[in-house]
């Protein structure tokens, strides 16, 4: 009898995805409840949607349900968050006490969280609902169990989204280098095994769906640019963009790049038939405009902000101040510049974009060892430089178009983050940026690694580089799991 066999081109990807799934489940179960950024808010949102069939409200007097508050108190999640001195509750007696209390709850105790409250309400309540709707599946599947049955199944379900991102990255590189399975694998491995992506992806956090939808949109955008615009590909690209926007306002960062991709795709497909191409380019936009428009109308009708509250920071823009802030984010402070507030690190780019991107876990209080940051930072820099060189090798026209698309998406995302932080800073509301906000660009880092490796002309060196890079990612993963386990349980 013949067993199930994955087709040869897909075999490396299939093996990688199985490895990624194991890592994702390990992360999901290892991290204590509510010890990933904003998890209490995201679980509360999903529970409100599941139990009450509505989005968290702007008014009310109870932020989270009685059930959630009881469980959070039992594990001492608030005391533990970002406090390296604290440990989660280790006492069997406390666990049994919580089980008895949980068993005595009424069904209504799951459904009495408003999302609002005297302490400012649920900080996630201004998010669009798509990710939380996705999380309804595990919530309902485990609804007969206690809170932690539902909670950890939601995490595992979320972790699957990173596999979607890895597969999309694999497809992206396959689009550009169809005969290079090793390069496809390396790019996908960067996504599947990036420690921060695995940590955030396997928590209850819309960033998981955001990363997946960005990866799919980047793949489809490159496909449209390379093959020309078709109705199906354009519609799929716009739909992926809509998914990103309906997940988190950060998704809007895709829009300029996607419009560029549609334009380049129409131009490529439209030799001698430009009018038809323009129509073809316009039609897929409905897949973006209709769902996003519906959300905007609903949000307005229900007096909800249509984008996250942080983006609504209302301070104006002072251009010299903005320039000074961005300068000091990446470069040392110059005489005469108004210094950044004292709660900023001396070189924020290193702290946020390097350390925060690769590995700051829990509520950012757990870090990878500095030696590993140095190696990962060097590899990232080499990959980006290599990718830049690669743009001007081979099919330069195609490469430039693809690079312009990816660079526009990246610049819009990073620029938007800086603008938001600057406005918050001007309002004296403190630090905003975190490395995890760059995770939607992790497929670009994967592609950059593949592009840099492709510069190696000897096959043996390419193979050695690819193996070493995947090995480094594996070591980073294991180290990350170890430092997180030690912080919480040793």
């Amino acid at each position: 009898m013949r067993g199930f066999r994955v087709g040869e081109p897909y075999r490396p990807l299939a093996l990688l995805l199985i490895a990624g799934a194991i890592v994702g489940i390990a992360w999901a179960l290892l991290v204590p409840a509510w010890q990933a950024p904003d998890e209490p808010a995201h679980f509360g949102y999903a529970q409100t949607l599941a139990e009450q069939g509505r989005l968290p409200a702007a008014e009310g007097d109870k932020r989270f349900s009685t059930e959630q508050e009881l469980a959070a108190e039992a594990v001492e999640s608030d005391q533990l968050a970002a406090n390296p001195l604290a440990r989660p509750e280790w006492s069997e007696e406390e666990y049994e006490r919580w089980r008895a209390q949980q068993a005595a709850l009424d069904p209504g105790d799951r459904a009495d969280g408003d999302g609002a409250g005297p302490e400012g309400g649920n900080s996630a309540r201004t998010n669009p609902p798509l990710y939380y709707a996705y999380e309804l599946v595990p919530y309902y599947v485990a609804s007969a169990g206690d809170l932690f049955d539902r909670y950890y199944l939601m995490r595992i379900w979320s972790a699957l989204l990173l596999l979607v991102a890895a597969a999309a990255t694999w497809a992206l590189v396959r689009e550009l280098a169809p005969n290079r399975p090793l390069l496809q694998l390396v790019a996908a491995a960067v996504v599947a095994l990036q420690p921060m992506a695995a940590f955030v992806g396997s928590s209850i956090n819309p960033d998981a769906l955001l990363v997946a939808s960005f990866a799919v949109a980047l793949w489809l955008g490159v496909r449209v640019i390379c093959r020309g615009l078709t109705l199906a590909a354009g519609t799929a690209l716009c739909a992926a963009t809509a998914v990103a926007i309906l997940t988190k306002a950060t998704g809007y960062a895709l829009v300029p790049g996607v419009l560029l991709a549609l334009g380049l795709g129409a131009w490529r497909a439209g030799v001698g038939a430009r009018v038809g191409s323009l129509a073809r380019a316009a039609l897929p936009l409905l897949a973006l405009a209709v769902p996003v428009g519906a959300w905007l109308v609903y949000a307005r009708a229900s007096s909800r902000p249509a984008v996250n509250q942080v983006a609504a920071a209302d301070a104006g823009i002072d251009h010299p101040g903005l320039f000074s802030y961005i300068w000091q984010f990446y470069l040392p402070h110059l005489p005469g510049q108004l210094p950044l507030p004292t709660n900023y690190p001396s070189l924020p780019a290193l702290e946020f974009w390097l350390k925060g991107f690769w590995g700051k876990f829990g509520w950012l209080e757990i870090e990878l060892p500095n030696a590993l940051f140095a190696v990962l930072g060097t590899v990232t820099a080499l990959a980006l430089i290599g990718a830049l060189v690669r743009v001007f090798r081979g099919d330069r026209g195609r490469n430039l178009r693809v690079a312009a698309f990816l660079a526009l998406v990246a610049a819009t995302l990073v620029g938007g983050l800086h603008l938001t932080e600057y406005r918050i800073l001007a309002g004296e509301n403190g630090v905003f940026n975190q490395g995890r906000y760059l995770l939607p660009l992790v497929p670009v880092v994967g592609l950059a690694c593949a592009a840099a490796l492709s510069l190696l002309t000897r096959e043996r060196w390419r193979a050695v580089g690819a193996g070493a890079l995947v090995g480094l990612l594996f070591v980073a993963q294991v180290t990350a799991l170890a430092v997180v386990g030690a912080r919480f349980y040793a």
Partner: protein
Amino acid sequence: MRSWAVRSFLAVAAVGLVCLLVVAATDERDLAFTLGVAPGGVAADLPPGGRACQTPVAVPAAFDGVEVKLGTHRRPGPPFEVEVVASDGGQTVATGRAAAGYPDNTVVEVELAREVPAGSDVDVCVANRGRGDLAVYGGPELAKRGSGVRVGGNDVPTDMTLVFTRPGSSAASLLPTVFDRAALFRPGWVGAWVFWLLAGLVLLAVPGLLAGALRSGNKDTRG
């Protein structure tokens, strides 16, 4: 013959795992448990002869040392005692004494004369035995649920920053304990065995899968 990709992967993975193993074997961990109270301010002021107790403290793991963060108003610290007494009756379980002379704003570890066993509720008291003032650091009362500070018979709305220690063990030798702790407050089907299984899968199956993926992917011959 193994491909170069697989060889380099295995080499990097092996070096990384060996480094991790060395760290895990040499990293001594002496934490028994902690109240998890961040030292945000003064929890109790102790004049000479003063005494403050954190009460009650549930003891989930045996300990024979207590770390306490102290302020001494920029003077060398006075001697003090840590007394552990049973919450139900006040019988002394263990005591320890710290000598004078430690600096201001320092964490001082006090060794107890005997081990305090797990499973009991105790009061942990800091008593100033010197001539100078002493401030015990801690946080607001809600920092530790169900426990509070008492000074001279009066409740004070704070919690002390107390860390309970035991003889150091390597991080690697704590693995069974780590997995037992990680299995609490999880879905009903998750026990320590799940973490053992996951550790095995991450350390053995994942590199195997990645090596397999690299071997399959390394049929890339076009330059």
